[in-house]
Structures are given as structure tokens and as C-alpha cells.
């Protein structure tokens, strides 16, 4: 069937394209989408030129929910609300499928969600209850990234979890702190950030410090880096300095630049560094279950929403990206009417 896809042709330039989809699997009409930093890097043209040349034109956005229009297998009813999984495996692998080279990712290796309809395999959608907050649900994908990182942390962690440090006062730092507090209510969750205005929103954290104002005797058992870009270096360095022996450092922040690491101290303390990126179906199911069981989490997560933009035209989409770019904190939600 013919489908219309709205692709980024070149930085800051979207265009309509015509695509064809097979009527097999699940067809979803997107309803609420959310802009991620990765989308913004394509839109602004801040990815290396050879990557832009290779990947564009491509539809952006990999965070979003929609309504089922059609399901060839009958697992879903028309009108069912679903969250869409951007990671798309092409084969099994020995590793988690969000790290497999055999997996493609929407809005990175192939078209994201900005289209009239989206065709997905049945296991790439997870039903969400009708009463979920739709604005928050739009960025469930981001929540799953923190969720899968914490699940992996649980698997490798061998020392006590009395104090857990989160570096970064942005969206992912906020979500990771919230999920850590949810999963480890007895642990002391300490947030390290740069912007007092942002840090003030972390009301569920046990302690909050600005990165240049940390007490000399403070130590943590494990660290979670949610900073990204070149600032990752100072964050990782501070974690290595404050962490107890045999702690784990869980990296989440994306950087376009190689980040130097004080390996001497890593060796001395016997630290484990674990990278985290993307997520898989089990993380989406886990997050949807968690939100269903703890609906008060929506109240906290709602604080992250800074812009809600109605998208009726490609110009609206452009404006939403521009608004998102100048927003210092929070998520830009797209009500997809296009």
C-alpha cells in the first residue's frame, strides 16, 4: 500500500516522500511523538558530513506512540494504543538485540516515525492502557533506555548499593534517578549536576549537589553517567574519583568525541564500566508494567514536558525542532496531525 513519509532531506529541510508498505504485520497511525537529542543532531546537521550523506533522506523520530489501524494477525484491535519499538532485529544474536549489528534502528539506520502510517512487525509494538498519560507515553522509549541500563547494572553489580550517584541534570538523568529510586527505595540516590534550576526538579532524589560543590568525604558505591558530549569527560572523572572499589560505572551519555578515562584509578579500584544504548522489547514491556503499577510516576515524568507542538505541516515540524533546540531542559512532544 502507498504510504507518505516525511523525511529530513538535508539539515533543516523536510520533504514529503512516497513509500510502499506491505499489509503484513501491524500498521500504526502515529499520534504522539517526542524529539530526542539524536534527532536534533541530524536536524541541525551536527553529525559528521559523511554520516549525513549516507543516512539522509530519512524520517526522524524514534520515540512515539500510535493507534493500531490494521493487524494482519489479529493480535491487536483497530484503535489499540501502542508504543512503538524502534530497534528492529533482522536475526538472532548472542548479545542483547539492542546491541546486535544485525539490528536496525528507526531514525538512525532507516525511517523513523514521521509518516502517515508505520508498518511494524507484531513484536515491535506493545499495547498501553487507554488511561496512560499520552504526552509522557510519547517518550516511553527514553524511559526504556534507563530501564535496560539499570537491569544490566543489576546483573553485574557485586558490591553494596547503599549510595548510587547519577551525573547529569537533563532528561535522562531525571528519568534514571526516578527509576533508581523506584527500584532501590532503600538506597541513597545522589544527583550531581550543573544547573540548579534543573536540579530543583529532582525532588525524589535523596541528595543533590552541584558538580563543583561536592563534600570532600562523599563517596558512592556505583555511578550513572547521563551527561554526554564533551562534558562526559569531567563527569566520568568525578565518578572514578568518588566511587568505592569494585563499583560499576554505567555510561549513558552520547558523545561525538572520544572521552579520555583515568584508567590508572579504574585499575586500582577494580571498577567495571558498562555502556548503555537503546533498548529492546522486554524493556518496553517492563516500563509499561511499571507505569501501570505505579501511576504516580506519571506525575514526576510530566515535569519533563516543556513543549507540546501540534504538527499539521512540515513547517510546524521545523518550528518544533527549532523550539526544542533552544529549550534548555525537558522534552518536546509532537501531537502528530500530519
Amino acid at each position, binding site marked *: 500500500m502507498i504510504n*507518505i513519509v516525511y523525511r529530513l532531506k538535508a539539515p533543516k529541510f523536510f520533504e*514529503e516522500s512516497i513509500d*510502499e508498505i506491505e499489509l503484513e504485520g501491524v*500498521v500504526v497511525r502515529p499520534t504522539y511523538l517526542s524529539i530526542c537529542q539524536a534527532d536534533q543532531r541530524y536536524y541541525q546537521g551536527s553529525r559528521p558530513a559523511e554520516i549525513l550523506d549516507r543516512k539522509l533522506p530519512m524520517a526522524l523520530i524514534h520515540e512515539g506512540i500510535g493507534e493500531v489501524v490494521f493487524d494482519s494477525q489479529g493480535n491487536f484491535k483497530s484503535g489499540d494504543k501502542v508504543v512503538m519499538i524502534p530497534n528492529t532485529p533482522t536475526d538472532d544474536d548472542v548479545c542483547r538485540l539492542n546491541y546486535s549489528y544485525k539490528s536496525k534502528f528507526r531514525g538512525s539506520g532507516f525511517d523513523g516515525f514521521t509518516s502517515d502510517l508505520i508498518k511494524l512487525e507484531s513484536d515491535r509494538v506493545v499495547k498501553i492502557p487507554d488511561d496512560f498519560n499520552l504526552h509522557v507515553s510519547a517518550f516511553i522509549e527514553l524511559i526504556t533506555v534507563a530501564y535496560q541500563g539499570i537491569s544490566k547494572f543489576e546483573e553485574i553489580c557485586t558490591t553494596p548499593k547503599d549510595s548510587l550517584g547519577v551525573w547529569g541534570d537533563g532528561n535522562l538523568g531525571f528519568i534514571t534517578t526516578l527509576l533508581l529510586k523506584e527500584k532501590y527505595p532503600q538506597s541513597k540516590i545522589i544527583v550531581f549536576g550543573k544547573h540548579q534550576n534543573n536540579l530543583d526538579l529532582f525532588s525524589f532524589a535523596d541528595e543533590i549537589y552541584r558538580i563543583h560543590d561536592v563534600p570532600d568525604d562523599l563517596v558512592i558505591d556505583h555511578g550513572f553517567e547521563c551527561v554526554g558530549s564533551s562534558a562526559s569527560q569531567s563527569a566520568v572523572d568525578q565518578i572514578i574519583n568518588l566511587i568505592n572499589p569494585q563499583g560499576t560505572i554505567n555510561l549513558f551519555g552520547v558523545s561525538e568525541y572520544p572521552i579520555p578515562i583515568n584508567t590508572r584509578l579504574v585499575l586500582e579500584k577494580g571498577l567495571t564500566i558498562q555502556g548503555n544504548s537503546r533498548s529492546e522489547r522486554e524493556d518496553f514491556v517492563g516500563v509499561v508494567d511499571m507505569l501501570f503499577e505505579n501511576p504516580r510516576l506519571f506525575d514526576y515524568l510530566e515535569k519533563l514536558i516543556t513543549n507540546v507542538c501540534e504538527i499539521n505541516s512540515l513547517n510546524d515540524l521545523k518550528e518544533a525542532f527549532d523550539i526544542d533546540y533552544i529549550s534548555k531542559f525537558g522534552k518536546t512532544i509532537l501531537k502528530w496531525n500530519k
Partner: protein
Amino acid sequence: MIFAAILAGGIGSRMGGTDTPKQFLPLGDRPVIVHTIEKFVINNNIDRIIVLTPQNFITHTNHLIEEYIGDSQKIVVIEGGKTRNDTIMNSISYIDENFGIDDDSIIITHDSVRPFVTYRIIEDNIEAAKRYGACDTVVPATDTIVESINGTTIESIPVRDYYYQGQTPQSFNIKKLFNLINSLTQEESEILTDACKIFTLKDEDVYLVDGEVTNIKITYPYDLKLANTILEDNHD
């Protein structure tokens, strides 16, 4: 109930170079009309799809539906009329005879030669027809419109901001449309080639639904060539 009427009654007098009506010519791997019908088949809000074709294409159309779409109980193929309004009236008569027309029944009328219509446009049509009784799908005019009565010199150049290009679907409350068509005089019927024009002539509001620049009508050989090129381009 919500009905879709796919208007495939035209014999393509503007297409040239072929005897096959344009809606039956191939676009990619299947005929244009099949692409169009598919857009309505996947919409679960639509109860019945009525495809209106020339009498001698009914069997052919049924075969195409069977071959490409499969056994779909919600599609029926019937004969269209001489004019666009006759074709719409044939669909309304069919609905009346087989289902009856209640106050809330809606009909979405769509050109079979607009296969690029989107799910969103169809949904917006349903919503607008339910709410306002009539709607037309349009895009803002991009070219300057000039009016010439004699075909030689310009009479006027209207302000472009107020002008839109009409696409389809056009959707209506069936009862309202039926009553208005029946109230037309013979003279009015002859000049009214567009169902929305009937509403405006009778001082009834017609709501605007945003169309898409991609929702093109395949009228000329060039359009079909362009549409095929766009599809092939995507496969590269």
C-alpha cells in the same frame, strides 16, 4: 454507518494514447484503483466501500479486488453514472436500498485516480463530515490564479491567500446531500459538476480539510509517469 464511494466512472478522455481508463493503468506493481481502494480497506471506521465504474469494467474491477486485496466483504462494485453527480447519486441509491439512510450516515467520495490520499486525510474527512455535515479536501493555491472570461485577456487577479485547490475526498452527511441534490432545478444540475458546489449554492457551510501536495490526481499521461517515477525512486 460510514460509507466510502470510490468514483471510477470516468473513461479518461484527457489521458490520451490508451483505451484503458486511467484508474486501471499500472502504478508500480498494481493498478491505480487498487492502491486507492487499499487506503479505505485498512480504515476500520469505514463500514462499506462502494466502487463505481463504467458498466463494462465491473467484472474487471471485481477481479482486481480479488487478486490484490482478497476476499473483502466490505467492498462492492456497481455501475457509475454519466456525470460525477449521477455517480454519487448511484452510490446513495445503493446505500438507501441496501442499508437505509439514517441521520448520521456519512459518505466519503473520492477520486479513484488519487491513490496517494493519506489515512490522516480520510480520518479528518470522517470527523469533519460528522461534525459539520460537509467537507472538502484542499491545499492552499500556490500558483497565482488569473480570471479570464474571453480567454484572451485577464479580467481579474484574485488575492491568492483566499484561494485553495480542491482535491478529494469530499465527504457529506448523506441525508443532507441527498435532499440538496433532489432540490436542484434541471438548470442547476447541469452546471453543478462538484458536490461541494451544491452545498455552497444552497448556502450550506462546507468545512475545509487540509489536503497534501502529494495527493495528486492522475489525469494526464505525465501524471502517471511522474507517479511511477516517484515510486521507483523510492525503491532505489
